[in-house]
């Protein structure tokens, strides 16, 4: 298992946002987390990426418990993610944003960076090439030297994905990657995610766009009020009565 949670729980005061959730992500698959608003999907991603501490339970990445690790340690284990509201370095250029994404695997420490100028310069070149490769992959090569904040929203999202890929992740977490995108941009995104999957990168995503989710996922986990209520292939999920009830219940409110 690449990513695994065991009885993972997170409380905010009296509210149990994630309640005893067990789920696994196998290497190479594309897995989606869906559920009505407030089901705890983003909280779950925040727990797995180390941005929030768990109240109880365990998280394993490649068999190692990371429940007490900070986000930079989890990133070093090969996990990258994007956010629903993109979190870019706005005043830096598009290329610099992706170069910073290489930080996780670059050997350059602060002291060694200052001392080993030659090796450092070589690595810097390598990182620049890697950044250019990722930009080409997501189709942003011609915007490399523009400041990140000058890009339209859809391209900022692509940039965030390029930055995540630059860290050479084994698993990529995407929080609502299709939100705010046009229909055309969404289908381009789906195609891009398929190519990422072909490269052998495991994907765990949260999204509300059902067609998009069912289209690209191998497996779907459904959360409702912090609990896992179903898990299966897209075809199984679409006919699962508990899932239909949860969504209808949410809409009836």
């Amino acid at each position, binding site marked *: 298992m690449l990513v695994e949670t065991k009885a993972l729980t997170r409380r905010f005061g009296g509210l149990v946002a994630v309640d005893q959730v067990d789920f696994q992500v196998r290497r190479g698959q594309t897995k989606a987390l869906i559920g009505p608003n407030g089901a705890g999907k983003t909280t779950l991603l925040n727990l797995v990426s180390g*941005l929030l501490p768990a109240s109880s339970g365990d998280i394993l990445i490649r068999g190692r418990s990371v429940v007490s690790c900070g986000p*930079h340690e989890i*990133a070093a284990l090969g996990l990258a993610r994007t*956010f629903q509201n993109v979190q870019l370095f706005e005043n*830096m250029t598009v290329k610099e944003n992706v170069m*910073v994404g290489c*930080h996780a695997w670059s050997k350059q420490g602060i002291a060694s960076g200052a001392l080993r100028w030659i090796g450092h310069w070589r690595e*810097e070149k390598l990182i620049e090439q890697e950044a250019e490769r990722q930009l080409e992959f997501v189709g942003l090569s011609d915007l490399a030297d523009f400041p990140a904040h000058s890009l339209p929203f859809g391209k900022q999202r692509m940039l965030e994905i390029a930055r995540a890929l630059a860290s050479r992740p084994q698993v990529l977490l995407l929080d609502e990657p299709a939100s705010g995108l046009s229909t055309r941009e969404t289908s381009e995104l789906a195609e891009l995610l398929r190519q990422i999957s072909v490269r052998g990168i495991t994907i765990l995503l949260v999204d509300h766009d059902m067609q998009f989710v069912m289209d690209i996922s191998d497996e779907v986990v459904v959360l409702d009020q912090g609990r896992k209520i179903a898990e299966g292939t897209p075809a199984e999920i679409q006919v699962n009565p508990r899932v239909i009830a949860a969504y209808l219940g949410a809409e009836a409110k």
Partner: protein
Amino acid sequence: MDLLAQVPQLVVSGITLGCIYAIVAVGFSIIYSSTQVINFAQGEFVMIGAMVAAVLLAKTSLLVAFPAAVASGCLAGALVALFVLIPLKRASVISLIIITIGTSIMFRGLAQLFWGESAIPAPPFTGVAVQGYVEDREFHLFGAYIRAQELWVIGVTALLVVGMHVFFRYTLVGQAMRACAINQLGARIVGINARRMITASFIMAAGLGAVAGVVVSPVFYAKCNMGTALGLGGFCAAVLGGLGNFAGGVAAGIILGIVESLTGGLLWSDYKDAVAFVILLVILLIRPEGVLRKRAEA
């Protein structure tokens, strides 16, 4: 004596003072960028560098004293980050700023305890030994005498400023530090250890301050309370240039040094120290975002 004839000399000493303000201003900007904190202990790092250098220069050579003084400054910066700023990260920015004032008073007190209250003279870097003490070389230029040590101050400042620019623009660690300052959440998720970056920014700012202290110790002498005035001048420069804007801080620092020196020499020497604050107040009233920063950052 003709007052105007003094102008070139005053400008030279103003530039020297301004260089120190410039380095201190860059230190303020580095720490502000990575933590949003205005570190009022910044001037004390200059004092530590100057004191350690002056004390050691009496016994050993510059080759030993310079690195030792800079290392002491870096150590002081690391201590502030590790034992004051990071453990208190839940505190509000304003409390942290007040804590840096306390830290600055502590450093000053410790320096007074260890090294006493009197000024310690330091020999110039490239002076000529004359009857048991070292006299600096002097150059005559545009009606002013420039001491070799003043050229050292200017040269070292230029080197540091260019070095900082290259570091933040072209190295990965520099980019990571900038990234951390712009968006800490984004930085943490790509694997940057924010705590380490904050520590690094303190070490760098303190190291810069200490270098300034070393080069200036033969000009001003080292004294335990020298950090206050230099720190406040540097703070004014940083704000005038726009906090976080290195080039702006450097330019403002040098201008401030010159204006202060001219005011002291030509007008009222008693009010020399007030100049920086009068300028700062006026500027904050009319252009609160700083003079040298672009008005609307699009």
